[in-house]
């Protein structure tokens, strides 16, 4: 492995890790607060990508500059959060918070099945590709390796910004503290006047926005096709499980491990590249069943 290939793998891994992290962040936030694993999270990611491609395809055809795709990404993510995340929490999840975990899992799984077909109905089975924005910020050359600014700088910056921003939001702002209080003890939070329903709705929408944003940001780097949601839910679960469910900072580390592991495998042993994330997860869980940063919860008896 020479330096060029090493750098390529490194850059691939970092930009890929940034995308996966953004999606996993939403997944782990929702789980951390609501104790629900949203299997439909992968679909929200895919729909974020589809909406971005459709919107930017439309506006770019009208003659707008490729840079205009950036605000459209944010619009797409917001749309996913409000138009899909909101109703899912409000109409479905709200009914099942007191039900067994397995049942909650089945409900979000059912939503996932529905959304997979919805994508196919709206966007068909043909792959979409809309990469003009990828070049909008130009390239950067490091030791002779040329890479897009979008993937090497923007994506990691957004991911880091979201990580720090979410931490700041949860620890320093009033709404963030309300969310943390509800996470700690829902009943106690309600007894001091916190509207837990609104906290959950808000949290779920934020999580959904993150999924949509992950898809929006991923859209120029990959072809958008059916099945990408299924891949992403399993992958982001692998990240979240490797880190420990609900561990926000840990998810960043796990995303990097998995992203780099996968991209180096692409150059070394391409057949197994898709397996690497799962192998990392299984290895970590074999040694630490609660994930890298999770701590075992002893049941009180």
């Amino acid at each position, binding site marked *: 492995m020479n330096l060029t290939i090493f750098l390529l793998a490194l850059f691939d891994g970092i930009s890929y890790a940034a995308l996966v992290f953004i999606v996993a962040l939403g997944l782990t936030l929702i*789980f951390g607060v609501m104790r629900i*694993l949203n299997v439909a999270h992968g679909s929200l990611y895919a729909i974020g990508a589809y909406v971005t491609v459709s919107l930017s395809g439309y506006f770019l055809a009208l003659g707008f500059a490729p840079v205009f795709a950036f605000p459209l990404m944010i619009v797409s993510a917001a749309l996913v959060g409000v138009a899909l995340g909101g109703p899912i929490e409000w109409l*479905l999840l709200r*009914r*099942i918070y007191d*039900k*067994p*975990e*397995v*049942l909650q*899992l*089945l*409900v979000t*799984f*059912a*939503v*996932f*099945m*529905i959304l*997979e*077909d*919805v994508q*196919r*109905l709206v966007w068909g089975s043909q792959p979409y590709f809309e990469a003009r924005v990828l070049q909008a910020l130009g390239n950067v050359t490091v030791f002779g390796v040329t890479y897009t600014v979008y993937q090497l700088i923007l994506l990691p910056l957004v991911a880091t910004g979201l990580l720090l921003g979410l931490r700041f939001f949860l620890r320093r702002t009033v709404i963030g503290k309300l969310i943390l209080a509800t996470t700690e003890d829902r009943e106690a939070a309600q007894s001091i006047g916190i509207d837990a329903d609104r906290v959950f709705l808000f949290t779920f929408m934020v999580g959904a926005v993150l999924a949509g944003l992950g898809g929006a940001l991923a859209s120029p780097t990959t072809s958008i096709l059916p099945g990408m949601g*299924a891949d992403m839910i*399993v992958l982001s*679960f*692998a990240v979240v*499980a490797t880190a420990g*469910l609900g561990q926000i900072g840990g998810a960043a580390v796990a995303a990097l491990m998995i992203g780099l592991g996968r991209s180096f495998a692409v150059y070394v042993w391409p*057949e*197994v590249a*898709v*397996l690497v994330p*799962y*192998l990392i*997860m*299984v290895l970590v*869980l*074999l040694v630490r*069943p609660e994930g890298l940063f999770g701590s075992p919860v002893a*049941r009180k*008896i």
Partner: protein
Amino acid sequence: MRDTTRHPTSDSAKPGAMPSIRAILTLLGILLLAAVPFIAPSMQLLINLALAKGLAVLGVTVLLRAGQVSFGHALFFGISAYVGAFLMASLPGADLILVLVAGVGGAVVSGLLVGLFVVRYRGIFFGMLNLAFSMIFWSILEKFYHVTGGADGIRLARPSVLGMAMERAGFEAVIFYLSIVLMVVLGWFTLRWFASPVGQIFQTIKTNETRLEYLGLSPRRVLLSGYVLSAALCGVGGSLMALTQGVVTPEYVWWVRSAEMVFIAVLGGAGSVRGAFIGALIYEVVRIYASAFAGDIWQLLLGSFLLVIILFAPGGIMGIADTLIGHRKKSGQRAATAEEAK
């Protein structure tokens, strides 16, 4: 599925009593199925596929009894099928029994290996890790196409039956009746297992693992026993499916297949043995007729229907049927009602 749902110790009638309505209906159903090749030959293939799926669904049902759901049990369905296909490829003319035994053996061994890992987890992790394992195997099947045939899969040549080479029609009849026999035998076995001390201990995973530990038992080992049984049942289903279709593809282990199994198990009545087969039969028949006009939205329909069942009819088809024939009062009150009736 509801937390208050209580499964009777045994689905079968009380000893010494008159055969219940349920037992008679079960017998009639089996006879009706056995008559399909004569009264509705065009349905034979469809019913056979449904029976194969029903056996796999039974595997998922076993886990539901412990309050666990696996989104990756198509893994064992597929492993069994591929073992059979590889066996036929390397040993042309091998016997049907060998194909079945090898396939199910493969499912049991892989169930044991995967099980050793996943029984450390419950709920979300259990469900998702199973999904991850099935995705791993699916990727292997797709990527190593020079061995596995990739997305096209590999043909499973027709095996001999007890040393005799069979024509197509005869072989199909053999597989059909073999499926019915396996349904009856394994369904009966699973019912007995549920009612037995081992099976009852297995079902306590759902309610109290602390007590289980304080009875001197390892919850992981207890869950593992049921996990291997469920993998074996999925394996039987997978082998029968492969023998019926004559070809195995990565679609056998695709997550949609796993989801389908969970769906049918919940549809039939989570935890019900008969429900697994009734659910599978209804599912297959509806799917065939619906695919003409609803092929594009099949998953959408399944998902919506799943939501409706979970939110409004958690007992599934068997729950509704029981209410209709008054077999079982509202769940959780069965024992009390029986007590009062004495």
